[in-house]
């Protein structure tokens, strides 16, 4: 384990985050966008755990538990919103859901 250098973890984390960001920016399906957001959260979790292990400070891992808890709740609410939108507009393409404008 300890033979793997910290940079690997961080590069993986950054890569996952960038994948998430690009997904959020370019995908049209709300569910995919949502999954990309989860991906970004998980990349942040990975970075937290990495540093926690590297610095020998458990606080980072505790944070991760909180983030996971919140993410679970958020996933439930987010999916519920997406279903509600679908029922109203018969679509989950977010570029078609643009009623909040001038």
């Amino acid at each position, binding site marked *: 384990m300890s033979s793997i250098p910290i940079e690997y973890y961080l590069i993986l984390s950054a890569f996952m985050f960038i994948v998430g*960001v690009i997904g*959020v*920016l*370019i995908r049209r399906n709300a569910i995919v*966008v949502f999954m990309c957001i989860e991906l970004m959260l998980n990349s942040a979790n990975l970075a937290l755990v990495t540093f926690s292990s590297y610095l020998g400070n458990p606080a980072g891992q505790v944070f991760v538990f909180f983030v996971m808890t919140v993410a679970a709740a958020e996933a439930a609410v987010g999916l519920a919103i997406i279903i509600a939108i679908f029922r109203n507009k018969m679509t989950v393409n*977010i*570029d078609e*859901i*643009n*009623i*909040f*404008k*001038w």
Partner: protein
Amino acid sequence: MINYIYLAVILPLIGFLINGLFGRKIKNEIIIGIIGSSTVGIAFLVSLGAFLQTLSLPVDQRANTVELFTWLSANGLNIKFAYLVDQLSLTMSLIVTGVGFLIHVYSIGYMHGDKGYWRFFAYLNLFIFAMMNLVLGDNFVVLFLGWEGVGLCSYLLIGFWYDKKFEKSTTADAAKKAFIVNRIGDFGFLLGMFLIYYTFDSLNFHEVFSKAQSLSINETTFSLIALFLFIGATGKSAQIPLYVWLPDAMAGPTPVSALIHAATMVTAGVYMVSRASILFASAPAIMMLVAVIGLLTALFAASIGLVQNDIKKVLAYSTISQLGYMFLAAGVGAFSASIFHVMTHAFFKALLFLGAGSVIHGMHEEQNIQHYGGLKKYMPKTYATFLIAALAISGFPGLSGFFSKDEILWYAYANGGFVFWLIGALTAMLTAFYIFRLFSLTFLGEERFDHHKIHPHESPSVMTIPLIILAVLSVIGGYVGIPEVFSGENGNLFEKWLAPIYEPAEQKIMHYGFHTHTQEILLMAISIILALSAIYFALYIYTKNKNITENISNRFRKFYNLLLNKYYVDEIYDAAVVNPIKIGSEKVLWKFTDSFIIDGIVNGAAKIIAVISEYIRKIQTGIAQFYAIVIVAGIAAVLLWIILSL
């Protein structure tokens, strides 16, 4: 009673509060009338008590201050709410409450059946309260409180019948005119007060007047102070050039004209000049101005009074003329003579107005004297009392007006010169003429009213008794001030009583030469002859030979019209002052400054924002991913900035 003098001020205020707050609920006219009158009546008794007590004190202890509380206190400026009880203020407060009480009683009958009955008595009581503050105040600020208060009450009472037509407009316009013209004078008075505080560092009468004697202050300062105060006096006391409001003030109920616009409020200016006698005496140029303005006003107003046909208008111009006399007296340094005339004038002019009110009451609101005539047999009491008042104002020997008027004429001659006396005597002659013209047209001659519509009747005794009391006062009121030439060793009692007030001023006034009693009696005889001949002439042409008036008015048609139209002063003021202000307000202030500039800036700012937003709002696309891009770009920019600054 001196220490309880504040009761004389507070009681009318209480009457005002009771009638003003609950009058509508009380409904019963008698109760409202009794509350209104009795508070003033008790105030009169309190004043009388204070007067008797002061009279029993030695001469040098007769000026007492009654301090109530500290009113204003700020960094050196310390204004106490205090009353000064001395010879002058007591004289004035006796006039105010005494005549005021009689007019309150009279109003019980006169205002009978009016829907604003309670409001009328509330205002009258408020007026007495303000006027008492004016005359009793121990400093210029309390005086000013009363000064403004009486102005307010005057406004309220002129416009009392606010829904009634008056001449070309409404009574509300007449009220506004009075208030605005008074404000011009008040502005002068305020400037005078500022200058007094700036010069003497105090507004207390005693301090200011003693400093005026002791400090060496140049005459220019005194002149400015006196000039500003006098501007205030011309507004309140209806002198040239600010007299125009008083004839219009006749729009108010007649008791108001009697109380406020004849007997008391309009004499406030005379009182103020008299109170500040030392300041005026230190400015000889302004004294001259006061005398000249007074003289001109007296002549000017008397000449207008000759041809007016509204009974109250004649009396209004007569009041202006008589006020001119008072200022003439003050201007030539005869302050006690001016206050003496204030007193006698209060008696006979209140009586004339109340008599006129009684006639108007009996003639169903008709005010044109050309539509009267022969009322003698219908209203014997009004006739008799009116005759006494008319004789008094004409200076008939032995009546009150004779003593005060001749005192003034004598001082005008002694301190002013022959021209002053001549114009004064001429005015006295005109006065006798117009008042007996009024008298003849009203009470004598043939009856010129429609018998089917109008049934003249005598007024109830609640109105005639005050008339009789005032008639008695008009007869005997002058005997407190019998001139030295008749009373011998005792001298003039009224003058002696007031002398300590004017002692500092006396020392500064220049007296011309030496005049003998023979001269005084001679001048007096001439003025008596002038007055009697004017009375006879008026009685003759207006009862016996009507053709003469026609001939005279035809021969001097232009001059007659000039007088009938009051020298076109109202029209001149309209053209010179009122209309330029109106047009300036409309065209410059309203249409240009307000509508164009101010509204333009406000609306313009809103328009600019609207135009800019029209473009900026396009940013709000409503597409979530666009917002996400902006957020990412923002974060990237911040990160870049952090990295570059490391």
